[in-house]
């Protein structure tokens, strides 16, 4: 009998602020340990938190981008537990009155087509510090630079039905948050972290099974792998007639296995209560509306618009909107006068090679637009255009026009009949046997002659112009 997998995800993203959530320390990543610390984020006696307005603004943007309802009043709460990376012995978070409720993410499921996954809530909280276990023998080192940096936690509904679907949801969620300029969502730098809840039930059973939480997921691929492992573990237990015990597990990316961290009986009692240092967070409707108005175009809307406006295929539009910078570059190239379909093909083609390596588009949009026009006018061949595109001068605003660059590189085509005739005559003279054979009826040799002309012209001859001249000479003699 078939089993259905039910998955919900808790995603933490670091908000792109300069300073920390509750103090004026830098939120920068990678500084020497314990240099971005102050009385507040060290939890010194007498220090008090004051919320960062920009963190609230970014969290609100994230909530609106996910279609959540931003609450006019939300409350900061203390989550109490002891850990060496948690300076105050509690984390300032939000509990029963979060910043935002009930949104959704629409995305392409590998199994079910276009679906929506509900977002239960989004709240703001502060991050903990970092522990380093391998640097001092027998000791754990504590770096509190990250302690107090602002996070948004996004909790999904248990709407996901497979590990692959969970991954697709995460990909879309990240895309939206990066578009909204809320977070850079870099799993490598820890600015996006995922905890996953999974349960299984008999297909058709309306009740949810007992869920387990999987932690320590450091890439989208590992989220998928960990959930597969956990699904298989639970199904095997259930098939064997055993019950699932609610617990927290850790994924080991090396072995691909999950292992038990703690069962529910050992679970924490966080003793949440409203933080008396912080009055309620009150956000006016006008302010929320202003944030909504300031949201950039989100991926889905942008994709639809690219299809409608430029006549692109859904696939091409999807590729172009994968990241906002790609779509922006594409539109800049079109705005500079390029044909949209050719621009799309360039941007998703040659331009992506450099972008994937460097994270930026080196060639100026106007140059690419010019290049596309030169190809259309047969001034530059498709082949030569790739070489022109790869030239560093295309990124240099002072390097003159694209035509000048192509000419300087010797990559413009010659379509002048007189010049072409010269090369044609040289080729015919040099290959009398082939001329004989052609004239005897071997018409396919025309390709050989074109190739020879291209070679003799060092690629500069316009192949479309070469053939009529060849035919004329061959037939005329």
């Amino acid at each position: 009998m078939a089993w259905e997998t039910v998955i919900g995800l808790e995603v933490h993203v670091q908000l792109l602020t300069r300073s920390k959530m509750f103090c004026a320390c830098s939120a920068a990543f990678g500084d020497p340990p314990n240099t971005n610390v102050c009385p507040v984020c060290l939890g010194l006696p007498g220090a008090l938190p004051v919320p960062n307005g920009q963190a609230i603004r970014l969290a609100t943007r994230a909530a609106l981008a996910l279609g959540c309802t931003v609450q006019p009043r939300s409350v900061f709460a203390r989550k109490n537990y002891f850990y060496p990376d948690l300076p105050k012995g509690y984390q300032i978070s939000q509990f029963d009155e979060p910043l935002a409720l009930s949104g959704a993410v629409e995305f392409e499921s590998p199994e079910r087509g276009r679906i929506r996954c509900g977002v239960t809530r989004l709240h703001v909280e502060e991050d903990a510090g970092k522990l380093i276990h391998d640097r001092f023998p027998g000791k754990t080192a504590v770096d509190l630079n990250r302690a107090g940096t602002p996070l948004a936690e996004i909790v999904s509904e248990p709407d996901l039905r497979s590990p692959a679907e969970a991954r697709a949801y995460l990909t879309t969620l990240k895309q939206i948050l990066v578009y909204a300029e809320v977070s850079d969502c870099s799993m490598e730098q820890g600015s996006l972290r995922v905890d996953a809840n999974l349960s299984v039930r008999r297909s058709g059973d309306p009740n949810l099974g007992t869920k387990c939480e999987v932690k320590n997921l450091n890439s989208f691929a590992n989220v998928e792998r960990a959930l597969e492992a956990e699904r298989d573990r639970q199904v095997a237990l259930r098939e064997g007639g055993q019950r699932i015990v609610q617990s927290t597990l850790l994924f080991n990316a090396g072995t691909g296995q999950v292992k038990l961290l703690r069962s529910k009986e050992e679970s924490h009692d966080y003793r949440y209560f409203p933080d008396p240092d912080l009055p309620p967070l009150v956000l006016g409707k006008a302010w929320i509306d202003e944030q909504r108005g300031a949201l950039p175009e989100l991926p889905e809307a942008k994709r639809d618009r690219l299809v409608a406006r430029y006549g692109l295929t859904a696939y091409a539009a999807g590729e172009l909107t994968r990241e906002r910078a790609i779509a922006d570059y594409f539109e800049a190239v079109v705005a500079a006068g390029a044909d949209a379909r050719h621009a799309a093909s360039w941007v998703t083609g040659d331009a992506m090679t450099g972008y994937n390596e460097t994270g930026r588009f080196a060639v100026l949009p106007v140059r690419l637009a010019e290049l596309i026009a030169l190809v259309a006018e047969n001034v530059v061949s498709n082949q030569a255009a790739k070489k022109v595109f790869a030239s560093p001068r295309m990124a240099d605003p002072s390097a003159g026009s694209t035509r000048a660059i192509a000419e300087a590189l010797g990559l413009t085509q010659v379509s002048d009949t007189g010049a072409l005739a010269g090369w044609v005559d040289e080729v015919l003279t040099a290959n009398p046997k082939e001329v004989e054979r052609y004239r005897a009826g071997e018409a396919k040799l025309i390709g050989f002659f074109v190739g020879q002309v291209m070679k003799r012209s060092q690629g500069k001859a316009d192949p479309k112009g070469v053939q009529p001249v060849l035919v004329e000479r061959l037939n005329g003699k």
Partner: protein
Amino acid sequence: MNIGPDGVLHVAKLAEIGVDEQELPKLVEQFNRIVDYVAQLDDVPSDTKAAPFVAGPTATPLREDVVGPVPLARPPAAFAPEFADGFFLVPRHGAMEDL
């Protein structure tokens, strides 16, 4: 309400406070005395309502997102119990690496 030694020790574990075994009976007795005393709030009918009271402003002020200078007259090394190479140090614990 009667909270036994196990109950008090459970709370002490949550609060990470070591309790001396010799102290425990007296602590349990005082704990119960205080809990019994505060339980007199049960006399206030549970359906009694009042607008929630918030000490201080009704809305939190928000800070500008500006990085300020580090306001420490002395660096962490000056007050940390154990500090090396810029890090606070604590005893290593296997289970900690798992969280």
